[in-house]
């Protein structure tokens, strides 16, 4: 697979504050990296540095073998970057804005019109074609930004919290679109706070904190990273039982026990046989179990396991 993005030793400073001390990342065609981490972790900063929009104190970024430097359009024009606050000309209509983008990328008039049709269709904006951008809702603006980013057919796509303003149906649609972009051989980085569905379309996950990549790997690696054969269990009781704590506390191999009224969660072996035995033992102990479920592939758990505090 061809390498699309190679970032080495990237260092970004804001005055005396070091936002990214030493950031390395390599992505190949067909990779989709989900970038997660608390507010202020440096997700936006690393995306901007990769896109060459902010100066780096050290390091280098190559896109398709071209060095990303100010004014090097050969590299820059292959990067599609959708910032978290979408830039646009509010006074323009949707189609004029996209035409402007087509011109700026020398797409050619007919091709531009074709792609405008395609992306407006894909992003459910066709009926807003002639609206002024200022009349769009937040989610629509976000979709327009995605359309703007994808219209020039970039090789590397950077999306900074693209799903934040989308409605539920839009999110489903968006996931499918990301999947097909990934399969079409683009390299993508998506930063997101919505972890629930990331594992469905990401090939890789990066967990950032304090400017450093705390964990990086394929989805499977991350989800099972720390304790291979353990997973989280969710148990719901029919009614509150005071002795539940004592009973669960006795069981060997059970950890991180948390009881909130009728809701119980803990970590235990990730193994069907072990789960069946555990359930039998709890029932025998007289717990009125209404629901008992091991939680598979939970990115959220993997994330919380890293011990990163949510707000700095």
């Amino acid at each position, binding site marked *: 697979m061809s390498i699309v993005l190679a970032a080495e030793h990237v260092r970004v400073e804001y005055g005396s504050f070091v936002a990214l001390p030493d950031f390395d990342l390599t992505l190949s065609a067909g990779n989709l990296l989900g970038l997660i981490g608390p507010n202020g972790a440096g997700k936006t900063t690393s995306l901007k540095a990769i896109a060459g929009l902010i100066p780096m104190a050290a390091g280098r970024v190559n896109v398709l073998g071209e060095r990303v430097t100010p004014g090097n359009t050969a590299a820059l024009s292959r990067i599609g970057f959708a910032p978290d606050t979408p830039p*646009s000309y509010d006074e323009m209509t949707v189609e004029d804005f996209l035409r402007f983008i087509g011109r*700026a990328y020398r797409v050619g008039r007919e091709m531009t019109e074709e792609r405008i049709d395609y992306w407006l269709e894909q992003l459910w904006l066709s009926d807003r074609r002639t609206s002024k951008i200022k009349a769009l809702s937040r989610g629509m603006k976000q979709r327009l930004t995605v359309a703007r980013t994808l219209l020039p057919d970039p090789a590397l796509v950077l999306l900074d919290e693209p799903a934040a303003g989308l409605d539920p149906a839009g999110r489903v649609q968006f996931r499918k679109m990301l999947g097909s972009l990934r399969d079409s051989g683009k390299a993508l980085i998506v930063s997101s706070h919505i972890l629930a569905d990331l594992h469905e379309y990401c090939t890789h996950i990066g967990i950032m904190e304090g400017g450093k990549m705390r964990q990086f790997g394929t989805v499977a690696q991350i989800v099972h990273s720390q304790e291979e054969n353990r997973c989280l269990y969710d148990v719901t009781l029919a009614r509150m039982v005071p002795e539940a704590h004592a009973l669960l506390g006795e069981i060997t191999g059970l950890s991180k026990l948390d009881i909130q009224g009728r809701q119980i969660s803990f970590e235990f072996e990730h193994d069907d046989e072990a789960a069946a035995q555990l359930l039998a033992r709890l029932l025998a102990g007289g717990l009125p179990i209404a629901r008992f479920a091991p939680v598979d592939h939970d990115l959220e758990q993997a994330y919380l396991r890293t011990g990163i505090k949510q707000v700095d």
Partner: protein
Amino acid sequence: MAAEPIILNPIGWGQFRLLGGWKRTLGLAGAYAGAAFVILLLLYRAMRADVTLQRFASGALFFFILIQTAILVFIGTNAIKRAIQRDFTTDMISSHRLSAMSGYTAALGYLTGPTCQCVALSFVNWIICTILSGIAGLTGGFSDLVGPSLMFVVMGCMAIFAWSFQTLMALCTRGRISVVGAFVVLGFLSNLETVWTLPGLALVIPSYLVRTLSSLQSSTRATAQDIPVLTSMFAQLALSFTFFLAAARKYTRDDVAAFAGPLGYCLVALCALLAGVGFSRVPQTPSFFAPRIFYNGNVQIVATFVALAMISVIPVANATRASAEWARRKAKDPLFDKRRPRSFVESVLVTVLLALGILFLVLGKEWRPLFADHDDMVGREQVAYCVTAFVLTLLTLGGFLRVAYAGGTKIGWLLVLYVIAAWCLPMFADFSLDALTNPAAITESGRSMLFTSSPVGLWVACCTELEAPVVQGLLVQAGITVLSLALASRTRR
């Protein structure tokens, strides 16, 4: 440089759409033409009893040329400033930077897009003025100059100059600074003719425009030689081109220096050329507003030194910045393999060679009368002292800038501080001391060493008849330079 037709320029097209496109532009031009016609008609009917049609037309012509200047300078530059400011506040500038547009395309877009309505109005004005001058019967000889077409070409050059300067300044300040203020002040100064103190500047500011207009109103006619139109247009276009190249570079990212490398030297060389040419090409006739002192060659050469020194700061500052950045990067970046940039001392020498070399080359034999006769110095000595002070002040500044850049300080305030502390304060202190201790003799007595320890004071002492200890002043300056260079060499970052 992409040779795209202007209409295909993406930013130009985008700005044109944002201003309402063809419909709005043509509508505006039509409405303006209609309003102008109606107003002219009504005014003429009201004044018919008192003035002849010819007189009325020439008055109206004057008025429309004023309007035209205002449209180009005020509305045009303001439109460019607003367009660039909007791109920064909405962050569309990042969107542009990631596109396939080169800096040249973008800069050209900012020059042509936001100003399209100005151009449309100018076209209407040109038609109106052509008709008016036909009625006024202005033809032949010198009045060709005020014949509308040439006048519009002249104003077009001025507009290109103002617009490219605005584009550059707006890109340097994220759209915060407007150059209209500077143009108003300079226009005012040129009206007062004080601007002739700096002959090079007078070339760039078309103050001859004002003279021409007033000669249209009165019967006194300037001679064509008084008005270096072509030289002035060349000066404006050459500077505009430099600004355009700088803007194209500055566009690519905020931290990129606009005049880095050769372009900074080109700017200095061009300014030196204009400064030199200014001496022979601008008129030397004093007037009420501009008494003899402004036309005094001794004063003019001092002003020229000061101005050239200020412009020379640009390449020197860029060289110090490059060396500071190189050192910082080298310390932090394991992959960094660029060669160490040349020392800023070298850039000082190149800059001085360009600035003063070209100035004196252009002046030729004309340099002698610019330096007043002194008892204790011959002409060549005076020049040598002036040049030494020029080198020393740039070296000193370079050293301080090197320290400032290493500390990551913003240098704007440092430059202001330096000019106040090293250039103005010693002269002011010298005058104040004299005024306190010996008020009676303040006008007759020569100045002290304090005065010449400022480079400006030294230039004044060398070029005018004022007596002051030049060599001692130079020694003080050299002392400060050594201090500054020592500080800079201790800076490891």
